[in-house]
């Protein structure tokens, strides 16, 4: 063989193959191929700025566009009509000089009300989904990473004490709450004592009872998810909302607290598969802490699919809020939301169809665009699909 083993070649340093492209550039290159997703994203951005504009223009005592100003002289005006300047008092004349979306049965400017409602939709969508994603990442992460570890009786006691303590405190039973919380602290102390004693290899019966293994964390979390999924979520929300004082914040929290199950399942599945990946094994072999492995190695890799489901989740949260408001359980009047505009308008559907069509079409467009955007994201972020490109 005439090929000699020259060391010369091996001293050359390898340069990266691909031209330098950040992940963002790569993402954008793939994303822009999907026209529908681009359209969804454009609508999303427009909606985002409209909602912010709506928030700034309609708040305060003398808002630029007053969504609550009643002008009975100008009621049920169709879209794009000019206000009746002779009969309106000066402060009642709309600043735009035109009713873009017409007026409702009380002569309120539908455009201003839609703007105000868009802010509600945006915040409800984002906050509710934010809550559900946070819960999902936390519970799903625990179930996925520590899944097979059993909960010991001692730990169960600590958790039970903590939970009841917090519940009592929230219900303003300060004394009872504090006592129970101290109980949980005592339990933690006992655990530490037992752990110290256990290293001496002599285990008392009490210690063995204390360390008795009950069900695994994964079982607890996932069965809880199953239970939550048993309730038809819209009626669960309705029930909770009926019990709580009606406010926009309660709506957000309730929607968030009843929709985290999907995200939990997602994150758990991602964690289960990530846990078997070689780079996680390598991180463990390097001796990195669990904390670092979870936050540096696993969550960033699990977050992409969660982001996708979150985007679609925002659409359904907006829809849920609109549904609640339509049924009258949502944000209380006089605050306008798309749902209650729709609800108010339904009585005049033949006389003033714009009162139902305008919010209806707005909801349709936003939900559709979020779904398209989310599906576009999924196509790009899914590595299996990416390899085809």
């Amino acid at each position: 063989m005439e090929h000699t083993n020259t060391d010369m070649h091996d001293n050359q340093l390898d340069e990266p193959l691909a031209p330098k492209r950040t992940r963002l550039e790569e993402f954008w290159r793939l994303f822009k191929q999907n026209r529908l997703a681009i359209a969804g994203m454009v609508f999303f951005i427009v909606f985002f700025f409209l909602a912010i504009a709506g928030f700034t223009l309609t708040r305060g005592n003398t808002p630029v566009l007053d969504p609550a100003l009643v002008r009975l002289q100008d009621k049920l005006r169709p879209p794009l009509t000019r206000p009746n300047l002779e009969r309106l008092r000066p402060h009642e004349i709309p600043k735009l000089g035109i009713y873009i979306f017409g007026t409702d049965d009380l002569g309120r400017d539908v455009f201003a009300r839609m703007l105000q409602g868009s802010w509600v939709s945006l915040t409800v969508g984002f906050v509710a989904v934010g809550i559900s994603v946070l819960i999902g990442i936390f519970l799903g992460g625990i179930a996925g990473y520590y899944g097979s570890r059993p909960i010991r009786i001692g730990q169960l006691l600590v958790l039970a004490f903590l939970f009841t303590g917090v519940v009592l405190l929230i219900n303003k039973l300060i004394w009872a709450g504090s006592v129970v919380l101290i109980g949980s602290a005592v339990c933690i102390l006992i655990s530490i004592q037992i752990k110290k004693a256990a290293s001496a290899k002599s285990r008392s019966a009490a210690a063995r009872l204390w360390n008795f293994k009950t069900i695994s964390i994964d079982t607890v979390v996932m069965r809880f998810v199953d239970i939550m999924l048993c309730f038809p979520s819209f009626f669960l929300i309705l029930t909770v909302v009926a019990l709580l004082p009606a406010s926009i914040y309660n709506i957000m929290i309730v929607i968030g607290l009843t929709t985290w199950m999907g995200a939990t399942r997602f994150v758990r599945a991602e964690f289960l598969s990530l846990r078997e990946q070689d780079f996680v094994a390598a991180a463990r072999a390097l001796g990195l802490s669990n904390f670092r492995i979870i936050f540096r190695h696993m969550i960033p890799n699990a977050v992409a699919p969660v982001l996708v489901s979150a985007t679609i989740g925002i659409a359904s949260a907006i829809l849920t809020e609109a549904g609640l408001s339509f049924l009258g359980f949502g944000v209380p009047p006089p605050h306008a939301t798309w749902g209650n505009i729709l609800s108010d308008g339904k009585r005049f559907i033949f006389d003033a169809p714009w009162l139902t069509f305008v919010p209806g079409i707005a909801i349709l467009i936003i939900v559709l665009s979020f779904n398209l955007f989310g599906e576009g994201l999924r196509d790009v972020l899914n590595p299996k699909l990416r390899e085809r490109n």
Partner: protein
Amino acid sequence: MNEIRSDNGTILEVENLKKYFPIRRGFFQRINSWVRAVENVSFQIARAKTLGLVGESGCGKTTVARLILKLLAADGGQILFNGQDITQLDEKEMKPLRKEIQIIFQDPYGSLNPRMTVGQSIAEGLKIAGIHSRSQQEQRLEKLLKMVGMSPASSDRFPHEFSGGQRQRVGIARALSVEPALIICDEPVSALDVSIQAQIINLLKDLQRQLQLSYLFISHDLNVVGYLCDMVAVMYKGQIMEYAPTDALFDDPIHPYTHLLLSAIPDVDRNNDTEMNATADEPGRTLNPADGCSFQDRCPLAENRCRHDLIEFEQTGPDHLVRCWKTARDGTDSFL
């Protein structure tokens, strides 16, 4: 080859290592039976030497690797690293030892975190090694990348920008970042193209010479093992069947399974027409040790004794151990 096992030079000694996985069945997930993934595995690795662990897929090679790294807990036996049994250590006591044993994986795509740059991946190890200052880290990073033949400009790139061979180099650099004494190579070249394979093998050899590294080289490719390793252990269904210095194993294989493996090597330079015929296609059921030799289903020499007696690991020559009573006692390979 005898100097390999000079006792003071042993870095890792595995003795009667066991790992059983439960098979759960039914509604209550009761443990139905056990898979003996690793059964009484023993071997030693000398300082700055390479032990090859050979076997077909599913024979337990990778489980051995994970047991040594303590990614899995052993069910029995000892793993002595520099004379210290690591199976009994808890996570805290293990931490300083983690640096000493590192791993390189087969799949260059799964072994790097896709969300971290090459530099960040390697720097994690540097922090563990106690290099905290940024400038020192950068210096060391550059040196490590050069050591594995990568340009220092690679450090702010993401893994997806590299080819398989380049990623494998990065994986090696990450392993080296904590200055280990032993590296477990889990099929590090079997996913690579022929031309790249030679680069990585040369790199591993150079690093061994420079840094006095010991390797546990896990592979199914006997050509690579024959080229790279000093000692070879042949594994079959969780047990080591034959353990010998490379030359002895290739020149005078004793165990029928080793014969079968060697005859199946596709090699350009040799035309071995004397292929051994196994009686069965591939590994069948897994057996208890009491049921005799685990190779009995495929062994052309299997007799009644093989099906009932416990087969011991016996010495047949200097450093040469075999788990087959037949050939071990005769000392000849009468069946070819």
